[in-house]
């Protein structure tokens, strides 16, 4: 896989920012009570046709699971605030040592009048994305896409969750996954009856 400086995905443009930084904070996987610690931050910028300018980062913690979270919402519409508040993407180790990301999607919840994470379905994602999400992920570098049973031999109650397996640290596939399931879902008002 070649190192790309930018990737266009539907109405978004992802730019990879060079280098890494130290980041102080609490790992999501350790819960609210976790102690603050240092992570290595690799970041990318997501810009959209509707003025979104968002810095997102991959945090690699020495003693906890990595995660993808918003670092800074630099500009955007009122509705893009949804991205700053919610939509962290957790990463767990796959059985073969690679990284596994469950494909949850930010979806409008009418009862709460805001976006919340819901189980992803490829047909619904393909519809707002305008192309096959699975093909896009594989083209950008994903190792496997499917249910956790299919791609990670999962047998527990999470076996049917849609997920992607990526090479550890594969920022490109992680960025595309984040952009499609979070940014583009909000931009396209996914789940809103409009």
């Amino acid at each position: 896989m070649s190192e790309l400086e930018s990737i266009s995905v539907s109405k978004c443009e992802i730019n990879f920012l060079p280098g890494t930084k130290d980041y102080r904070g609490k790992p999501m996987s350790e819960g609210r009570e976790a102690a603050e610690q240092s992570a290595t931050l690799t970041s990318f910028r997501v810009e959209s046709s509707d003025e979104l300018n968002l810095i997102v980062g991959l945090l690699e913690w020495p003693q906890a699971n990595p995660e993808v979270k918003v670092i800074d919402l630099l500009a955007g519409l009122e509705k893009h605030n949804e991205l700053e508040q919610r939509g962290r993407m957790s990463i767990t180790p796959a059985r073969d040592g690679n990284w596994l990301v469950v494909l949850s999607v930010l979806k409008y919840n009418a009862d709460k009048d805001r976006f919340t994470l819901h189980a992803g379905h490829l047909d619904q994602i393909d519809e707002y994305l305008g192309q096959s999400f699975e093909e896009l992920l594989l083209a950008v570098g994903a190792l496997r896409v499917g249910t956790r049973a299919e791609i990670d031999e999962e047998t527990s109650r999470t076996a049917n969750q849609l997920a992607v397996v990526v090479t550890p640290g594969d920022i490109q596939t992680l960025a595309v996954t984040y952009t499609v399931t979070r940014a583009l879902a909000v931009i396209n008002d996914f789940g809103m009856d409009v």
Partner: protein
Amino acid sequence: MSFVLPVDDNDVTILGIMAAMEISAAKEFSDFLNNQFSTAGQPDWFEEVRHYRKALGAPFTYNSANDLRFVLNEAAQPDSQIWHLIPNMNQMWVNAADNLRKKLNQLHHQQLRPDLNTLFQISSLFQQVTESPGLDVAGWARAVKSRVQAILAGTFEPPQVLDPEPPKPEAVRAIEQEYETAQREFEKRPPWGAKWKGPKPSRKLSVDRNTRDIYDENGTSVKGELGKLGGQVTEIWLRYYPRGGEVWVDEDGATMGYIKGTATMIGWFGAAPDEDADTVRGFVLPREYEFTGVDVIDLESRSMLSKNTKEPVLEHLSLLSEKIPEGAKLNITDYGDLFVPVDEGDPERITRMHKGIWFPGQLPG
């Protein structure tokens, strides 16, 4: 003239094909009729028809038989002077000729959006009127139809190296230029619900779907600036922009909002210009409708307007019954301007519809 086929959905090429088809059909028809009449010993037949029509007091604006509108009009008259010469004439031919005349009038008034669906529709009409007298245009129209179907189905692969385009007649170039002017106007102020093409306007406001109010950047309500129009403007914006949020208003009041990431024309801050005028704006949708006296039927799907709108439409239908007769054919443009198609001159707008009171999915937005 060589018979050009489309290779993609380029609007100017499509427009050129439609205009060139008209010129070819006109020439072939007049040659065909000249031959027929000459054989019958009537070389001055066109002048004779002109005198006949003028004697009846009918308007006769055609200068030669080389005008397709003349042929289509004369052949469709109950006392047609040329009907007997065209093989296999029937009512279907007359209907197709009538439709084609109206379409060509729209083409010459820059009201026909040159897309593949329109090209298919107009090619079908050309085929229907030119097949029975055995004109070459019929074969061209058939080839255009199959090509359009292949392009729409994604099975047509354009050649790597395109043949150079044959030189175009002056009349075709003129209609292309007029279209480009009309297209620039359209892009400057597109219909409600269509893509916004210009720069982003400077005045930023926001519309709130819960309070149905309009605010400036300080959160102060500015709906009062609109006076009596306040409620109406907010409803139009939210019809096209149901989620609400930031909008940008241009100096003339045209208003843009981002819908699913796309800058979109959502209405006007104030009255829309030409709101009270009776001119028809925009491009005609490639569909036909008929007024039953109480309802509008979409002639393609046979569905009734009264049963297919998101918002109540009965008031508008009763307005139509005051303005147009039962059985009237109707067309609509992407601006929602409803009108009875005419084969000469400019049509008049009957009323303005919007996506909430029209068949779903047909108007933009």
